[in-house]
């Protein structure tokens, strides 16, 4: 009954609106630009300009709120005065960088773990489709390599070495509380990311139990903030990417044809000098690779009221790969909201991102298929054939010669389709309720959904269809479509207790975690297409099976897999006086994968710190921060075989299967031999680290030493062929990674007055691997390594050069004697080399001067040895007449040129032995990233309506210094004819209002 009365009683008055202006300064009196000034209870607001000045229209009695990151919020009521000057105070709590600790956060000072957090500024505005590529070189100990230039390709990410032989070696990724598929980031917009934290030691990862063995990467996306007006931000980037250079020194048409004539092989064999001179040189690398254009647009809107805030972004990304027929288009939407109750006891946040991408992704890359691998065509096609020689697929059938490789592939470019469409949705809800002052209940629900459609079609009039269909089947060709869906749900429920009394602080939590994942796929493979009605993705051209033959029989496929985990765990963190702290974690973990053998596992960790700088005796020392950390603990890897949650789901059982047998008749056959002792791999890690900041924070850094031992390594164990298999995987052996992470940053020039700031940085990781307890009699396993040796150490015959006497290849036998005829078995030796780096990291500088900025980042890698199989192709004398060669062959052994590195073309043993002849050092220094730009000062923007304007130019992989002769020194790959990562130049601008 009161309400109507109240309304009726409201009085009316004329209120006076006036303009308030003033100046905002910080604690030391310097002007603060960009402070948000908002009239409480309205959406009216403004920001201070470059000199800290503002003006706003308000009514007397209204309340102005001044907020700025790292400063305490100030409230002023509008009174008679029309000038309100504000001096803000530093907010010590807020200034402390927040450190993600897994399921909770802490301040940098009170963190006991080894972790690194990267902020948006260092990852935004880069042209990479996947943010993982951008992370490369930014965290000591995190080795990121990308072996494919396919837009959005997955990278290989190893934190502090590789911890598993057969299982997952990638870190666990958590986006806004949701664990996500680590092999698929192409659909996520990197511009939405606010921060990335890399958790390295057991103190940080044990709480992730069965999933934390390879480290954890925690990603937070941007959020709106409470009580801020609408901010609109737009970023546009335009990039051009090109093929990186190579050093193979390839022949032109005249050289290649002359070589052919000398060898009596191929086209050149029957040509005269004059005829040879008439040929043009086509560099097929320039044909199959060309400049790729990348556009990247992101528009974001954020705002916040008293009890709610939101961040919304729209992104459009369109990248042409440098390889023909490879591209990625992505449309992404993100909406993050957060809110709280009036009494601030209940708070929640939701994160939802919906993404759609379309990508043309050629297959057979890396293979030796001369009619399918475009990269092969780019590299080894003979230069005297030109694209003008192409007419159609049918004309290539006869004569069918290898040297027509580029035309086969050109035909395939025109007639083959391979496309992936993907929808990816990630959503999460975090909610918490403060039960008492000290106790809160929290829940995080999250889901990751991914739906992918693959469409492949080989047109009926294509060379490949005609070739394999033959005249008997003019409607050859095929179309395949596969739908793959993956859904995972994760829920963490917890009770958290925080209390401070005297100098003591205790933060403890009890948690349960439930994870369930589902995989479904289905598809068809339709043989026979009618060229009159065929269109990729449509069934109009399908040819049906008939009674005359079986060549038009179609196949169908479908798969169901389910996976799950369940765990409960607890963590307690105790701090005394900001000087000492200890954190303990214990987790019980169950995996569906070991349900038949060892269902439950326990992981734990203990971590401690000593904030030396907070001790009395450290007063007036040069150290601003000096903190010693140590941790010890275990985490697990339940994905011991294959990279996905669904691979090897039930290895503990013997299985038979049904399927086509003899003559295609349905049959029953053995499909799996059980391993009844199966368990997770355990990584036990000891870490000791020191964080330091000196000379008024000008020198900052940390150093961490670690020993990381994987035990119960799941690996192939040889069994006698009488069992129908020659190896079974079992938990046996150890792999130890020992190493050091170092990060140093120094503000070389730090000036407030003239605005010149220069920071230099260097970071790196040294890592040494050692295998132990390998499952073989002599402690050696070919392909894996030997006890005490490196992982995947090469075991091969040593090449020793060319015999000056006869041009044959020379090798070393096991005892080191030179021989032309080594024993392919017993003369192989361990050569103490592998593909993983001993050292890797980066260095560079960040410079800014009055709005101009320049950043560089050089990545380096030392200790990588790879087989240059592309070089082997370019030097293969048996391919003369078919493929392209390097000018290296001019140095071939002849009786007149006896001292050389190129064996005689006729050396009897030129293809008899596998050796380390083409093993090459792939160490490199690369300008991984450089950026130059200008931030327009607020003064210049006055009256334009913009609050922020920035222009910039970027370069990725601008140059590389390396002995490696191939197109990309970075790829952690021993294959050949792979798709190299490009060199990319970008220009972009960003504005906000």
């Amino acid at each position: 009954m009161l309400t109507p009365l109240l309304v009726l009683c409201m009085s009316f008055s004329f209120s006076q609106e006036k303009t308030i202006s003033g100046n905002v300064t910080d604690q030391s009196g310097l002007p603060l630009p960009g402070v948000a000034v908002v009239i409480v209870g309205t959406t009216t607001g403004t920001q201070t300009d470059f000199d800290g000045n503002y003006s706003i229209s308000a009514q007397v009695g209204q309340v102005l709120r001044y907020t700025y990151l790292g400063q305490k919020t100030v409230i002023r009521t509008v009174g008679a005065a029309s000038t309100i000057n504000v001096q803000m105070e530093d907010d010590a709590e807020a200034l402390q960088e927040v450190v993600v600790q897994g399921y909770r956060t802490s301040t940098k000072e009170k963190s006991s773990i080894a972790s690194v957090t990267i902020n948006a500024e260092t990852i935004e505005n880069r042209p990479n489709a996947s943010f993982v590529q951008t992370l490369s070189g930014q965290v000591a100990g995190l080795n990121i390599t990308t072996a494919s230039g396919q837009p959005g390709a997955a990278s290989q990410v190893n934190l502090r070495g590789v911890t598993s032989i057969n299982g997952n070696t990638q870190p666990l990724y958590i986006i806004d509380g949701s664990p996500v598929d680590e092999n698929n980031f192409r659909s996520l917009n990197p511009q939405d990311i606010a921060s990335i934290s890399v958790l390295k030691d057991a103190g940080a990862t044990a709480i992730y139990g069965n999933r934390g063995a390879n480290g954890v990467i925690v990603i937070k996306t941007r959020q709106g903030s409470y009580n801020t007006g609408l901010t609109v931000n737009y970023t546009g980037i335009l990039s051009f990417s090109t093929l990186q250079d190579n050093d193979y020194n390839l022949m032109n048409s005249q050289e290649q044809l002359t070589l052919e004539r000398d060898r009596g092989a191929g086209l050149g064999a029957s040509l005269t000098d004059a005829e040879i001179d008439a040929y043009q040189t086509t560099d097929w690398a320039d044909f199959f690779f060309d400049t790729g254009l990348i556009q990247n647009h992101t528009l974001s809107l954020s705002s916040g009221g008293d009890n709610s805030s939101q961040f919304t972004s729209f992104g459009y990304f369109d990248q042409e790969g440098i390889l023909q027929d490879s591209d990625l288009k992505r449309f992404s939407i993100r909406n993050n909201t957060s809110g709280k109750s009036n009494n601030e006891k209940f708070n929640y946040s939701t994160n939802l991102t919906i993404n759609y991408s379309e990508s043309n992704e050629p297959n057979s890359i890396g293979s030796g298929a001369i009619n399918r691998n475009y990269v092969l065509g780019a590299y080894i096609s003979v230069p005297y054939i030109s694209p003008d020689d192409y007419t159609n697929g049918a004309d290539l059938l006869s004569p069918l010669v290898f040297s027509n490789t580029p035309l086969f592939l050109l035909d395939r470019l025109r007639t083959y389709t391979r496309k992936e469409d993907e929808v990816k949705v990630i959503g999460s809800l975090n909610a918490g309720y403060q039960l008492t002052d000290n106790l809160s209940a929290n829940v995080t629900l999250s889901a990751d959904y991914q739906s992918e459609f693959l469409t492949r079609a080989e047109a009926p009039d294509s060379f490949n269809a005609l070739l394999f269909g033959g005249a008997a089947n003019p409607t050859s060709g095929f179309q395949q479509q596969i739908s793959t869906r993956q859904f995972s749900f994760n829920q963490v429920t917890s009770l958290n207790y925080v209390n401070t009394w005297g100098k003591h602080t205790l933060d403890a939590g009890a948690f349960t975690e439930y994870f369930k994942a589902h995989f479904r796929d289905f598809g068809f493979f339709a043989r026979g297409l009618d060229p009159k009605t065929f269109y990729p993705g449509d069934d109009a051209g399908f040819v049906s099976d008939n009674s005359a033959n079986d060549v038009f029989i179609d196949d169908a496929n479908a798969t169901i897999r389910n996976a799950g985990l369940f765990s409960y765990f607890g963590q307690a963190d105790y701090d005394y006086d900001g000087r000492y702290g200890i954190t303990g974690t214990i987790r019980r973990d169950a995996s569906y994968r070991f349900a038949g053998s060892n269902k439950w596992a326990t992981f734990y960790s203990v971590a401690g710190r000593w904030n030396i700088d907070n001790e009395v005796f450290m007063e007036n020392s040069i150290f601003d921060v000096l903190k010693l950390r140590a941790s010890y603990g275990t985490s697990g890897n339940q994905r011991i075989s294959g990279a996905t949650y669904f691979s090897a789901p039930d290895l503990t059982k013997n299985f038979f299967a049904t399927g086509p047998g003899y003559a295609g008749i349905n049959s029953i056959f053995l499909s799996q031999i059980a391993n009844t002792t199966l368990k997770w791999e355990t990584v036990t890690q000891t870490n000791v680290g020191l964080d330091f900041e000196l000379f008024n924070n000008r020198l900052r850094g940390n150093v961490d030493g670690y020993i990381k031992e994987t035990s119960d390594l799941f690996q192939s164990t040889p069994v006698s062929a009488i069992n129908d298999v020659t190896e079974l995987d079992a938990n046996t052996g150890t792999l130890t990674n020992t190493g050091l992470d170092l990060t140093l940053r120094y503000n070389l020039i730090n000036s407030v007055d003239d605005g010149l700031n220069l920071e230099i940085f260097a970071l790196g990781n040294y890592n040494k691997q050692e295998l132990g307890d390998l499952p073989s009699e002599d402690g050696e396993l070919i392909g894996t390594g030997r006890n005490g040796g490196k992982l995947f150490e090469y075991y091969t015959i040593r090449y020793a050069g060319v015999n000056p006497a006869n041009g044959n290849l020379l090798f070393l036998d096991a005892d080191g004697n030179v021989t032309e005829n080594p024993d392919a078995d017993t003369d192989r030796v361990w050569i103490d080399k592998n593909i993983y780096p001993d050292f890797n990291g980066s260095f560079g500088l960040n410079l800014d001067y009055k709005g101009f900025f320049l950043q560089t980042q050089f990545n380096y890698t030392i200790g990588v040895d790879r087989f240059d199989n592309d070089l082997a192709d370019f030097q293969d004398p048996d391919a003369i007449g078919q493929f392209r060669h390097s000018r290296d062959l001019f140095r071939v052994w002849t009786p007149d040129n006896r001292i050389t590195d190129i064996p005689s073309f006729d050396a009897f043993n030129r293809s008899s032995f596998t050796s380390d002849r083409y093993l090459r050092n792939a160490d490199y220094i690369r300008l991984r990233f450089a950026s130059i730009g200008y931030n327009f000062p607020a003064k210049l923007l006055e009256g334009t309506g913009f609050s922020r304007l920035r222009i910039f130019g970027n370069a990725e992989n601008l140059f590389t210094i390396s002995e490696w002769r191939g197109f990309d020194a970075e790829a952690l790959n021993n294959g050949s004819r792979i798709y190299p990562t490009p060199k990319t130049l970008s220009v972009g601008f960003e504005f906000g209002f």
Partner: protein
Amino acid sequence: MKNFNKIFYLFGLFTVLVACNDAIDIDQPGRLDAEAAFKTVADLQSGLYGVYDRVDTSGEIAFSSIFTDELSIGFDNGGQGLADYAFVLNAGSTAPEVFWVGAYGAINAANRLIEAAQLVTPEADEQTQYNNILGQAYALRALGHLFLQNYFSTNYEDDNALGVIAMDFVPTIDQQLLRNTNGEVYGLIIADLDRANSLLDNDTSDPTFLNKDGILAMRAVTAAYRGNYTQAATFSQQLLDKYGLANRAEYEAMFLDTDNTEIIFKLERSVGDNYDGQGNTGSPEAGGWAGARFAFVDATLAGSPYFEMGRSLFNLIDPADIRYDVNVAPTSVIDPDYATNNDPALDILVIQKYPGSEGQPLMNDLKIFRSSEMLLIRAEAYADAGSFNGATNSTAALIKQLRDARFGTDTTLPVYASEAEAFAAILDERRVELAFEGHRYKDLKRLGSRANQGVNKDPIDCAFNGACTLPSTDYRFTLPLPIIEFNANPGLREQQNPGY
């Protein structure tokens, strides 16, 4: 406090709700465990198709033809087979590994079926089917052991020499067994053939499955290989009497898989089966269409032949012989003056033994036992007994009988000056008759010395690598035990074959 309790209960409920075991006790759909796999005779029948599916000779065809003198490097060769072609053979080579692993895989599958059959009790009306299944399982086990013996035993005729590991049971994964003697392995083969013969019924109409005639053929081959020519003569004669020889039309049709006159046992290969594909080209790993051992696309000049017929084999085949039409593609480019022109590009001999069937180029059934091979075994027995000349009951008579059928005319009765000449004639006849069927390597091994022959390539085929001849006494006519087996079973290293 009341409020606190409420929330605490709610929290508890949440935990319980999600704590269900559905996350950790998951049975994937479509799994068939060992207990449920074989419960009925019909299941055993399906299991038998699974065992047959493990038998493949495409690797043998590839290896034998590349390593010996049946083929030459083709103009469309992209590096395929160069090591085998240069006689490079060691414990790390492909052939020993895939032959060893493949045959033991098939034997293991047969043993699993035999053991599963013990637990199935057939109904009265299923007894015949049950016996037939079991009989074929034993026969397949014998075939597997025979295959291994052929490649890994140093001397078939010596019962005390080392054979392979005799497997008549399903082993456990930690077992490390050593080689048995030839006597023991052949003992198991004969016993298996006896068991098979007593279980199989008398229907021999379908040559794509092992029947009693197949057993008899295996007996004939085993006896001949072991030098036991009395038995070999008896068994081969029985089959020769029953099957006879194909006429020219039937012979051509046989290699299109439309005639079975001469066929005692062959492995069916059809569209959609597990061998319907290219397989591993140029490698004894093979596993696809038989014809893809020589060409990528089809058995014509335009079919990208990466191997061509060896000139020395080609020179042995008379164009009037139906075997010329069967083996040499009409699209071949033949240079009569190849020896003087010395240009392989002018002399392209395209192999057509496997032109394809069922509309699929290069895909043909794999012929295991044919009556012509029985005839040639019978001829060996005559030669061994000294009766190599004469119009009847002699090597010469049988060779003439075979040629008459192949030429379709009355050919001259050959006369041999010596036993060696007779064996050389048999070996040459086998080389033509059984070309590209995986026999040449084994034939040179066991008959080479008696015929005074070895690998002999025409100079034009080996000019580029110098690997022209290899005497039949070379250690490489027995395969090495593969490294892959030593990794699991290091004791076997001591039993490696000589020379490796």
